[in-house]
């Protein structure tokens, strides 16, 4: 049963990716902005335009270009970037770890902050503390992540400069690691100087991404917990003499966390999408930053590669969340 569901999801994922590939390929060729027109300086003739279009393979029809590209993708060749003249797959994969590390750190911060707020709010329900938490949540939600980024830069980059404003790692510390998962590998290799430097660079962008998500998690989890606190089994636990903290953490939380888990899965994909603007703001060398450059320069092969990878990430995250939910939810587990 489980295997059938898994295979079905994988098949759906492949169809989704094909759909994304077709749409992206068509859309970026239909929307205004010809990479060759942008590249040619004044004085170029029609013949010069034609020459460069042929050089970049843009002289063929869109369906023809698509099938050439798709044929390459199936064999692992995503084309060559117009701006960097490097293979797209290598470029994208070299930047993916930076974005994943940033997203995961933001998620951890969001869960920690949101979870703490929810637990305190539930523990202190119907008091001024809960009111204060609701106000803080409202503020966190009403400000978009890039504005949080600017506020953080002003506070911790300029007024009290404890964190680094731009980049992923200090130029004098760039490691020669096996992978591009610098944060993870620096721990494995016991390079704690590097780990600290990476954290100093990542904290502000991660926090900017995390704050709105933390507010959402906090609100939903608190609501869920408060509803659970009225259920019979929780009342039974109280009558057994367990402390309020025990009741919340050990009895109510396990059931209340399920809707939050689904939400985290969905929001994580949005969080990865949010890295595009945040990486730009903090000059963080991830996939999002590269995506903006690709769009500005109309680097069609690179845009296609990045979007396809983002789509793959989104579908994978959703798949993992669904499977996790099935594992954690006894009703689904035994269905």
């Amino acid at each position: 049963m489980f295997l059938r569901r898994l295979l079905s999801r994988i098949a759906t994922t492949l169809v989704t990716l094909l759909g994304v590939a077709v749409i992206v390929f068509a859309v970026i060729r239909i929307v205004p902005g010809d990479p060759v027109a942008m590249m040619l300086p004044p004085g170029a003739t029609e013949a010069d335009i034609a020459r460069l279009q042929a050089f970049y393979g843009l002289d063929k029809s869109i369906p023809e270009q698509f099938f050439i590209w798709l044929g390459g993708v199936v064999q692992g060749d995503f084309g060559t970037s117009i701006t960097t003249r490097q293979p797209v797959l290598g470029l994208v994969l070299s930047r993916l770890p930076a974005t994943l590390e940033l997203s995961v750190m933001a998620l951890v911060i969001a869960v920690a902050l949101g979870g703490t707020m929810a637990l305190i709010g539930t523990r202190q329900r119907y008091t001024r503390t809960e009111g204060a938490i609701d106000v803080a949540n409202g503020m966190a939600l009403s400000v978009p992540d890039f504005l949080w980024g600017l506020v953080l830069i002003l506070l911790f980059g300029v007024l009290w400069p404890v964190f680094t404003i731009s980049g992923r790692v200090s130029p004098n510390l760039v490691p020669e690691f096996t992978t591009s998962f610098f944060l993870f590998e620096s721990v494995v290799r016991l390079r704690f100087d590097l780990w600290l430097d990476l954290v100093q660079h990542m904290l502000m962008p991660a926090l900017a991404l995390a704050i709105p998500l933390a507010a959402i998690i906090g609100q939903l989890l608190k609501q869920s917990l408060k509803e659970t606190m009225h259920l019979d089994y929780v009342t039974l636990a109280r009558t057994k003499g367990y402390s309020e903290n025990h009741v919340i953490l050990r009895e109510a939380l396990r059931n209340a966390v399920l809707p939050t888990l689904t939400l985290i899965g969905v929001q994580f994909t949005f969080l990865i999408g949010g890295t595009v603007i945040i990486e730009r703001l903090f000059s963080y060398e991830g996939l999002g930053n590269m995506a903006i450059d690709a769009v500005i320069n109309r680097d069609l092969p690179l845009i296609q590669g990045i979007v396809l990878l983002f789509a793959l990430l989104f579908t994978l995250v959703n798949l993992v969340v669904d499977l996790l939910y099935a594992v954690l939810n006894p009703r689904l587990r035994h269905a």
Partner: protein
Amino acid sequence: MTFSRRSLLKMTAASVTLGVAVPSFAQAIDELVIAYNVNLPSWDPTVGPSAVNPTIQGLYQSVFDQFILQQPDLTPAPGLLTDWGWNEDRTQVWMDVREGVKWHDGSDFTAEDVAWSLARAADPATGNPIQFVWGTLANHRVEGNRVIADVQQFDPTIFKWMYFLTGYVLPKAYYERVGAEGFEAAPIGTGPYMVEQYERNAFVRLRANPDYWNGVPEFETVTIRFVTDAASRVAEVESGRSHVTLEIPYEEYDRLRDRSGLAGVAEPVSDIAMIFFNDIDVMEDENVRRAAVHAVDKQLIIDRLLSGYGVALSTLETPEYAAYDPSIEVPYDPDLARELLAASGYSTDNPVRFTIQTTRGFKPKDYEMIQAIVGMWRRVGIEAEIEVYEVARHFELRAADQLAPAAFYNWGNSVGDPTTSTGFAMFGPSPHSVWDSPDLIEKIATLWAEPDEETRIQGWKDVSRYIAEHAYVLPLLQYVQPILHSSGVNVVPHASGALLPHLMTRA
């Protein structure tokens, strides 16, 4: 903001714990850090979009030398070529090559490198976007220390291109040995700095070239961080993490330049704002065009929107350009604009209507400038509807000659030659021209191959006057580039807009 003793102690402890040194402007600068406004996608300065991106040229010129050196005032000077010219009947060019220059790997720079670089640039197979210029020379050959090439098609500006886009000398032997991929991974040039470390989308670390033929740069190490967001660049310099930055909002520049430990330099660069007129619809009426030009108070726009940073223009030639003629003036005269419109039957009650296209946020205050201009036009009897588009769309429409009757654009011309400003912008057959009337085509056509420099420049001045009289275009202003820097650095601005670390010294 107030701090208690406890909070200050906590902050200090946190700073120490995190190992962060609070920057000090007063510290002597050991390693120069520049917050640059664009990323560097590729190290080949002759291929792809970065080769024609004016902002990136400063990075290229730090590592590679151009055939001919361009000085900060845009004038040429001996560089890798010490002398150059045409033969008497202009069928050949000759170039004398500097001796004693070394590539960054220690090998000798030779005339072969120059000949190979020119031939490579002229080869369509390399994808050089300026190939149509380099292709006017052929059969490049070396005779001793001199490079000679045959002129396929006479271009009086060919030597100016040698200090313009894609005019770089690359190492023949090294490139042939490592290939395009190897060159991307480890580029070498003869320029003032050598690439020590490069992280795409992050930074490049440069080390001074100890053998540089034009003097070793003062800063031994320079780190150029790619900080594409203007607010982050301001924060970089304000916090002391970077020593120099550029292209920041004028308001931020004014706020910070007099702050203790900081300084600024803001000089005009070879980049102008203009409004193309397309020879369609109401723009075919000269009264309408002239009214549109006379109704715009350029100085007011500069003062109010650009904090005074800009130079009002009457032609597409700036004061630094070879064909600048200060006697050509198109004054702000709203009364004359009303009279001209009245002669064509238009007034504020019966305004002439057309669309003006503009970018928004591509250049400083571009959309706001157009809003102000539309307001000025409305007062004399012109009702223009603003259409916002991306700059990529502008290029596409311009190449297809499908722009609206009026379209805002900025035009760069860092060699200062009239062909690369007025010429390409106004010569009908060029895909980048918008105004295509036969009278103007006829006037310009004879100038492309004019061999006598004095006659050529005077010819372009006459064309500029003719264009101004008939209002075929609306030149607005020359941009000023704000560079904010630590007071510990002396920055020499370059009129091309290139930010060059080798021109920086300790204050």
